[in-house]
């Protein structure tokens, strides 16, 4: 009788997996990140499936921005704008797709666009992903412009990060800045092990107003923004980067540095390299070896993972991840993207749960 039950449960599990073979959308992107008025935008999707992908649909929903009651920035469906299916690919013979479509008409000034890829396989299972972006001249001047948000819950349940061009490097060339940060976002943030899996909890913005990276000075247009959690002042010339509160600086091409500094500012994770940083107790750094060992074990490591990182300004601290993991808080990787280690993963997961429950 017990074996019969096991067989039934096993069959149900097999049924579950076979019937749940939905396609997987690996990435969706658009370029340019913020298109000029009525300028073409290319939408891209990469997806895979255990069974043949038969149809991919790009839906575009076009809104216009306006000032609503109480001066609230609002959006409404644009009369005569694109609303629904913009392009369809009918496919055969492939389990993996890498498609793009140029929406040549683009969008007028003050556009707020919601685009969605729907991928269907031969078993009629569908997966879909949606992104929100702005296009055309922003009606809010130099205030933050949403570039890429996979969340409909922004900004309360997302980490809202605004990129600011350094005036010395990008003054007068904001189009180059937008080109540069496209890679910072797509090849950087969205490839990190703890961001790509939770991309729906991140929203990326920019301002065309310039800041000063060397002094971490924000432009007045966004300094008191009620939306933004973290600011990244982006520069192209290399110099020593720093963080001050919720402002960090990085070269646009040092994607590892960008995520490392963001982790300081958002998750309050500390450096794990020895021995010349400034150390304080946090989720990935402990003043007691016992706490460190407990943290390492809870994350799936061993007590032996703990090592001290010595400092001359604030005592001795213990990090719960071995150097061999080469995690991003140990070595930011500069232009390469390293993973967060297992203890940091645990810290960030806990953060994401709290963010969802706000």
């Amino acid at each position, binding site marked *: 009788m017990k074996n019969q039950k096991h067989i039934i449960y096993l069959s149900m599990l097999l049924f579950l997996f076979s019937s*749940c073979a939905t396609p997987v959308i690996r990435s969706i992107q658009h370029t340019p990140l913020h298109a000029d008025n009525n300028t073409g935008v290319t939408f891209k999707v990469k997806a895979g499936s255990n069974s043949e992908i038969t149809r991919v649909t790009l839906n575009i929903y076009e809104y216009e921005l306006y000032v609503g009651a109480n001066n609230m920035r609002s959006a409404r469906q644009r009369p005569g704008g694109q609303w629904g299916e913009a392009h369809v690919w009918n496919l055969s013979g492939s389990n993996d797709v890498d498609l793009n479509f140029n929406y040549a008409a683009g969008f007028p000034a003050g556009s707020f666009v919601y685009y969605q890829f729907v991928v269907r396989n031969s078993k009629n299972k569908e997966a879909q992903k949606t992104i929100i972006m702005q296009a055309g001249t922003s009606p809010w001047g130099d205030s933050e412009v949403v570039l890429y948000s996979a969340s409909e819950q922004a900004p309360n349940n997302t980490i809202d990060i605004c990129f600011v061009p350094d005036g010395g490097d990008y003054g007068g060339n904001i189009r180059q800045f937008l080109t540069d940060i496209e890679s910072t976002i797509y090849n950087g943030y969205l490839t990190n092990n703890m961001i790509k899996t939770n991309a729906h909890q991140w929203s990326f913005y920019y301002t065309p107003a310039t800041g000063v990276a060397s002094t971490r000075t924000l432009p007045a247009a966004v300094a008191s923004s009620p939306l933004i959690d973290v600011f990244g002042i982006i520069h192209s010339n290399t110099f020593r980067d720093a963080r001050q509160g919720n402002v960090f600086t990085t070269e646009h091409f040092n994607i590892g540095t960008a995520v490392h500094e963001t982790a300081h500012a958002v998750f309050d994770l500390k450096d794990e390299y020895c021995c010349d940083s400034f150390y304080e107790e946090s989720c990935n750094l402990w003043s007691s070896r016992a706490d460190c060992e407990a943290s390492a074990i809870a994350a799936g490591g061993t007590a032996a993972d703990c090592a001290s990182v010595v400092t001359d300004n604030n005592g001795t601290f213990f990090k719960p991840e071995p150097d061999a993991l080469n995690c991003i808080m140990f070595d930011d990787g500069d232009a390469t993207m390293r993973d967060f280690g297992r203890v940091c993963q645990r810290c960030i997961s806990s953060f994401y749960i709290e963010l969802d429950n706000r």
Partner: protein
Amino acid sequence: MLKIFTAIITVVLFVNITCLAQKGEPKLSQSPLQSEKVIVVKITSDASGWKTEIVRTDYGAPTLNIKKLHDVLLTASDAFGKKIYDVAFDDPRVYYIDDGPGGENGRKTDATGSRYVMLPYKNEIAVLEIKGLAPAYKDVLTKFQVADRVKELK
């Protein structure tokens, strides 16, 4: 037998819930990026201590208050001392040079620094308190009476 039947129904329901992708048009709110009215507060720190200035109301989101391991904690309370919101942040004067191992790293302090914090808009906010969290800030405890200013806000 009943248990097996129940298990099958449970699994079928689970499959339907998890495997059917959400479909249809977006259900965007009218103000998709500005969901909540907030009070914008400017915090300044210098050698003389801490200051707060209630700047305006706006629409956005209260500052993330998930991690409370920073230098200080700002608590907004009503006139009876009931907490309405709190948020931790670092001393805005302080910056950290992060040059990686072997680089020129460390903690530096400017003469003055400021940052903005968003509080949920609540007419009953009467007191803002800044209290030290990190060991170096253990003596920090400053209170600001803001009831009149909050009542002026629209």
